[in-house]
Every structure is written in C-alpha cells, then in structure tokens.
C-alpha cells in the first residue's frame, strides 16, 4: 500500500484556538510536534467567535477576580461543571490573554492603555477582552503567526480518519490528504484532539462543515469516554432571514453593548422569564436594567444578559405563543438605544453582516433573531489538570472536551477555555511522549483503515451522502432540539438506526482528488454516532438543566444534580450509557458561593 509516514512526539488534531495553543506548548516543551487540520491554517471555526475572551483581569472593575469568575461559570453551568476545570480556567485565563499580546495580538484598550473588557451574559463584571466583534479572528491569527514563527509542522487540508492504538495506548493516527486523496500515517505516543464540536448534525446552526463531531467519535472508537453529551447550547441569537443565512451567529455583544429583545407587540419580554435561580442578581425594571450599564454597584443585570440557555428558551416560547416576527424570530434592537457611530465602532462585523446578507441597517432598524445550534458542552471526559482521556496518550482540549462548562457555557468562556486547556494538554502530551520511542504501526491496522476509507468508492448505485446528511440534520432539529420529549427522542433513535444502515450503503462519484462527496461520506458515521450519544443521554436525563430542556420533566432534579452521564463504545460497536457521580468540590471553593451571593 502506498503510504506517507511520519514520526512525531505529539500530533495535534485540529488547528483552532485549542489545537494551536496545544501545539505551541508541546513544541516549547521540547516535543517534536505536528498539527493536522482539515482546512487551511487560519480558517478554523475559532474565527467565528466574536465577542471576546473571558478573563478576570480586573482592568475595569478592580472588584473582579478569579473567584467571581469561577462562581459565575459554575452558576451559568447550573453547577454541573467539573469544579476543578472551572477553577483552573478562572485562575489561568488572565495570563493566557496577556501572553497573546506578547505574540502580537492587539486588543481594544481602556483609557489607561490596558486591555479593554466588555459585558456579557452571566458575567458579574465587564470581563471580555476583545477586538471589536472579531476577537476569534485575532486569536487565531495570533496563534497561527506564533505557530509559523516557531516552525511547527502543519499538515493542512488533511483529515484524520482513525486513531491507532495498541494495548499500551495511543501509537499514532491515520488520515488522508484532501487535495490528493492519498493516505498518511503519523506515528506518535501522544495525540491531542482539538477538533471542535458537533453542530453540523443540526439543520439550523452557526457551525461550519468541519463540525462533524469527528474528534468525539475518534475518541469513542479508541476507547475513551464522553461526558454529558445531552447538553447542546442553542445560542439565542442567530439570523433568521433570509433562509440561506438562517443560523449565522449574531454576537451576544449586541446585548452586552446595550441591545434589547422585543416581541412583535413591542414588549421587552425577558422580564417575564427571570428564573428564581437568577432572580436576586437580575434587574426587576427596565429603568434599573438601563442604569446597570454605567453603575453596576447599585443596579442589577438586565435580563437580556441571563445565561444563553435562559434567553434561548424565552425566545422559543415567545415565538411559539404567536408573538414572533414575520420570519419566526424576535427583535433584537440596538438601533434605538445607541448611536449609529457607537454601533459601527463596537460591532463592525455585525453591521457588515446584516447589511450585506439581509439588507438590514442595524444602526437604523432592529434585527430579527432566533436560536441556533452553537456549541456542545458535552465531550471527551478528561483529567482536569492534564486533559488526559481514559486512553493512555490521548488528550482533548477545547470544545471536543467535556466537563468545563457543565450544562451551559457562558459567552466568552470558550476562547479562554481553548487557551487554558490547550496549553495544559500540550504540556501533558509532551510529558507523556518523553522516553516513548519505537512504536510500531502494524501493517494490518493501516491496511484496514485504508480499506474503510475507500469503501464508498467500491459501492455502486448507492445513495448520495448529501441526502443522508440532510435527513440527519432534519431529525436532530425536529426531535432532539431545544425542547425535548421522550417519545420524540425515541423516534430520533429509530431514525438514526435507519440512517446508519443507509450510510453503510452510500456510494460516491468521481475519484479521490479533492472530492467533497467522498469526504462527507467519511464524516457521516461520526455525525451519526455523536447524534446517537446526544439522543441517548438526553432521553436518560429526566430533568431540565442548562442546555437540556425536557417538556416532560420541566424542573431540575436534586438527584440528577449529582450525576454525570457517560457514553462509551460497547464491544459490539453500539453506544453504552452509564451514570457516574459528579465530582464534589472541596469546601473552601464551595464557600465562594456564600461569600459573593
């Protein structure tokens, strides 16, 4: 078999914020490091992040510190977060932001010349370091330029289809070049998964084609476990019109910078949806909410800045009750509240996006918005300090990892998550690789991986992969979406089983050179297995919490508050689901919730 082979200490799969940060750290720890990514370098989904990086730097509010950030993160996740990850994240995020400046990032400034910070949902103080509303681009470009400056090897437009293991753990990875369709194998004792999320299994999503859940699926197949896959975040504000842009993200910064939500009757409806859990810290009147932007000491947060799960559910209810806009969303209005100049300065890419794609001038008229599938809180179960998965030599960081965000992620906590845990994963992967040389990649395993990848070409007259993808997206949208019930999810599982049979019989036209139909045929099994994990876990968790809302179990449940759901792959290839107790935080951390309540 024709096969290109390479040897490294650490192979990082994915070149978004977490992958590049992991690669930089592994390289600087002395490991021979490679990054493998499906797109060109600098195009990863991180570029879509808009609002900012959450870090308690206290540049604007000296009262802010890691303990307040930790508390906000845990409460935003409805206390299901792994406490240790939330702690490390809050403690280390400020240093991770500062080092980006040493690598060339240019954040917006405070009048004192420090990094400016903006308000976001669920954060007690203005905390998000930002560059207008294109912070993700700044983050990825900075890390990209640092990666290039260090001379780290990058395999661009190269897709990993399998992780290679022996009884001792990871031995490498196998994949193909998208451009030529030729196969390549990396021999390495450490692999860091930084592959992002799963949103492409949903019909309305802010995610790009890369978000197929391939990292989740590769981890499962290699013997690792996934935690709490039922928690999928629907961002409250995606574009709804025209249809071709439905789902494209409208940054939370619009609300952080003063925007409000209104229904078709013109009511600021979020005041009707304040849950008891957040009542003490949320404004009761519009006047109080409006004063908060300038005086946080004496006023409470506007309800538009409740965590995303609360706002998404509220919008969904308004539309269902017949108070939506003509195109099935609600109004997001900043035009009547801030000057045109301010809006263009703070939200340049939102201004551009609405102007170009919807012919809406956001400085003069409200936007129409509705929920869009945005982020998966669930992911590979990892050790909080090292990001090590259950398989020796396998690490996961960023969206593909689970635990950090509990049942719901706060805005701004993703970019900081990428940096904090990307760095930790890179360091631990380099450490693991030390002294582990001479791994063998058995010919049989490589030949088997190649056979599996080429199978869609061998079948003739089978179904078109695009049709199957469409049907899966419709299934997840209709049956495992923002509001869930047992009968619908049972139906979803039946449909997923039927889709699996169809995927086994796909065929693709053309040849191996840059063939998107073939690439999709290889992505579909990943999409199906993560969809099954989401549906199974969502059916099992009989309560509503964060990004998981059950119409048939609308309340949170004290027993489930202490329970994680773990997915693994059973011997016969099916998904096995088990319950596991939530790690309990030590009493000194638990005390934080009393002192700052």
């Amino acid at each position, binding site marked *: 078999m024709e096969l290109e082979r390479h040897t490294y200490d650490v192979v990082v799969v994915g070149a978004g914020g977490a992958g590049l940060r992991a690669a930089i750290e592994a390289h600087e720890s002395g490991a021979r490091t490679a990054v493998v990514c499906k797109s060109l370098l600098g195009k990863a989904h991180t570029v879509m992040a808009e609002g900012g990086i959450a870090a308690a730097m206290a540049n604007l509010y000296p009262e802010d510190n890691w303990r307040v950030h930790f508390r906000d993160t845990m409460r935003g996740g409805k206390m299901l977060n792994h406490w240790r990850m939330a702690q490390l994240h809050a403690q280390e995020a400020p240093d991770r932001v*500062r080092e980006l400046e040493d690598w060339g990032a240019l954040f917006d400034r405070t009048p004192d010349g420090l990094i400016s910070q903006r308000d976001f949902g669920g954060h007690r103080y203005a905390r998000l370091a930002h560059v207008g509303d294109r912070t993700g681009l700044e983050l990825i470009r900075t890390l990209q330029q640092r990666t290039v400056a260090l001379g780290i090897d990058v395999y661009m437009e190269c897709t990993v289809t399998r992780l290679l293991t022996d009884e001792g753990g990871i031995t490498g990875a196998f994949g193909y070049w998208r451009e030529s369709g030729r196969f390549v194998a990396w021999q390495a004792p450490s692999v860091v998964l930084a592959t992002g999320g799963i949103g492409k299994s949903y019909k309305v999503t802010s995610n790009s084609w890369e978000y197929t859940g391939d990292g989740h699926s590769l981890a499962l197949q290699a013997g690792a476990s996934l935690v709490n896959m039922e928690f999928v975040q629907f961002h409250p504000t995606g574009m709804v019109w025209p249809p*071709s842009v439905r789902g494209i993200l409208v940054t939370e910064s619009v609300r952080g910078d003063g925007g409000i939500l209104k229904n078709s009757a013109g009511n600021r409806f979020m005041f009707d949806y304040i849950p008891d859990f957040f009542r003490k810290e949320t404004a009761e009147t519009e006047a109080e909410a409006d004063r908060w932007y300038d005086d946080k000491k004496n006023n409470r947060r506007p309800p538009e800045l409740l965590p995303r799960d609360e706002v998404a559910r509220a919008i969904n209810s308004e539309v269902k009750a017949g108070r939506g806009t003509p195109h099935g969303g609600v109004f997001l209005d900043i035009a009547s509240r801030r000057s045109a100049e301010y809006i263009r300065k703070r939200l340049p890419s939102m201004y551009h996006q609405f102007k170009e794609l919807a012919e809406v001038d956001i400085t003069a008229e409200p936007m129409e918005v509705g929920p869009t599938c945005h982020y998966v809180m669930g992911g590979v179960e990892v050790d909080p300090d090292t990001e090590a998965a259950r398989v020796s030599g396998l690490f996961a960081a960023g969206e593909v990892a689970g635990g950090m965000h509990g049942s719901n992620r706060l805005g701004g906590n993703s970019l900081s998550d990428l940096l904090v845990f990307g760095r930790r994963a890179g360091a631990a992967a380099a450490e693991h690789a030390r002294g582990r040389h001479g791994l063998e990649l058995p010919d049989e395993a490589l030949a088997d991986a190649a056979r599996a990848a080429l199978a869609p070409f061998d079948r003739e007259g089978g179904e078109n992969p*695009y049709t199957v993808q469409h049907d899966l997206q419709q299934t997840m949208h209709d049956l495992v979406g923002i509001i869930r019930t047992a009968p619908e999810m049972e139906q979803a599982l039946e449909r997923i089983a039927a889709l699996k049979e169809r995927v086994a019989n796909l065929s693709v036209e053309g040849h191996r050179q840059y063939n998107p139909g073939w690439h999709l045929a290889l992505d579909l099994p990943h999409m199906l297995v993560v969809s099954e994990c989401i549906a199974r876990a969502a059916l099992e968790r009989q309560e509503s919490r964060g990004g998981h809302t059950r119409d048939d179990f609308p309340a949170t449940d004290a027993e489930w508050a202490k329970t994680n759901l773990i997915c693994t792959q059973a011997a016969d290839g099916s998904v096995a689901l088990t319950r596991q107790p939530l790690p309990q935080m030590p009493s000194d951390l638990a005390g934080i919730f009393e002192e700052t309540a």
Partner: protein
Amino acid sequence: MSYDATFRVWRGNADGGDLQTFTVEVNEGEVVLDVIHRLQATQAGDLAVRWNCKAGKCGSCSAEINGRPRLMCMTRMSTFGEDETVTVTPMRAFPVVRDLVTDVSYNYDKAAQIPAFNPRQRDADGNHRMQQIDVERSQEFRKCIECFLCQDTCHVIRDHEENKKAFAGPRFLIRLAELDMHPLDVTDRKDAAQDEFGLGYCNITKCCSEVCPEGIHLTDNGIIPLKERVVDRKFDPLTFLGSKIRRRPKD
C-alpha cells in the same frame, strides 16, 4: 420567489478543464455559495470548493464571479438578473488543484518568511500599555481574513508567475506595514520590505483595496506609508552620509 438560473462553473484540474453549464434553482436571499452547494448536493457530488464559515469571516471561498475576484458567500444572487448567466472560475493567480480549489501555498510560504513579531518588555506590573488610537492603525490590517483576493487581483503576479519569487503581494506588504506600525514591535523590517518582499514592485494602482471584502485600505493606509518610510531611510542625505562615513580605526 424561486427561479432557475444558468451557471457556468469551471471544472478540471492542473492538466486542464473547461466551463460546464448547469441549470440550477435559486431561492430568495441566496448567495453564490448556496447555489454551488446545491449543485454539489444534486448534480455534481464531487464538485471541489473550499468554504468554512459562510459569513465572510474566514476567507475560504474565494473565486472569480463573472471575472471579478469575490467571496462566494458574500455575493448575493440578487445582484444578478434572473436571466443573467453567472460564471464561476477559480482564482487565476494560483495553480488549480481541482475545480474551484487552487493551490495557495505561495501565500503560506511568504508568510513564513516575514521576520516574526518581536515585542518590547512588559511594564513592571506585567501589562503592556498602548493607547487605542495607536493600536487602531495596525488593527485595520489585522482585520485581514486571508482570502487572498488581493493577491489574486494584483497585476504584478496575476499573469506574471516569474514575479512571485521577488514579490510577496499586497497581503504581506500590509502584514509588514502592520508590524511596522505595531506599538510593541521593535524589529526593523524596512530594508527587508524593499529587498526581500518586493515593495518596489507595487505601483499603487489600488486594485487590491478595491477587491478587499473587509474594506481594508491596503494601498492608502498600508503600502504607501510603508513606501514613504522606506524612501525616507534610503534617500535621506544624512542617513546616506552616515552609512558611508566609518569610524576611524583606533590606531
């Protein structure tokens, strides 16, 4: 609301290819990339195209639409008449890989050659202090999404493969300008801009600024100021004299 449009799409590889004609449905509000995706899903499953964000933020789906370098995701179908034929071809300045996908490695090679960012020390308290007005100059260039449409349109390399060795193209001239204006950076890249990256090849026709989907003023705010600073150095009589006069040997 829907209609059938005529699309001509270039299909082929490094060995050659041709324009193929398709009749394809178009719906309200769609962009060219939606129509290309519909072709993939219904008529040409192996049609090669790069894309990621579909929101003008990643710069992947660059192509030439009716001869003009553009992002497919930001080109609305409503800008064409319903009976107008829409022709989509790959970027001409780069070698074709397949269909609408080109080999853009030239850009990554040039990026790797630019001397890296090199900051001054942090302040004693661990922070860097900069004023907003000072960071904004470089921020304009950091808006670049690396779609490489400026490279594609630049006549220095568009039909002159032989210039690629000596000329880095507008994207990397503004990268040099960005670093030159960066409040923290301490490395001098002015000589390199002229000698290694071909700043002198640019005769400021501003085609790059015209096609930039981010509205970056590459020529006015980046390349011209950089040229001025290089010229200041090179032709300043005092600097010239200084470079010729050597210190007398001690003995």
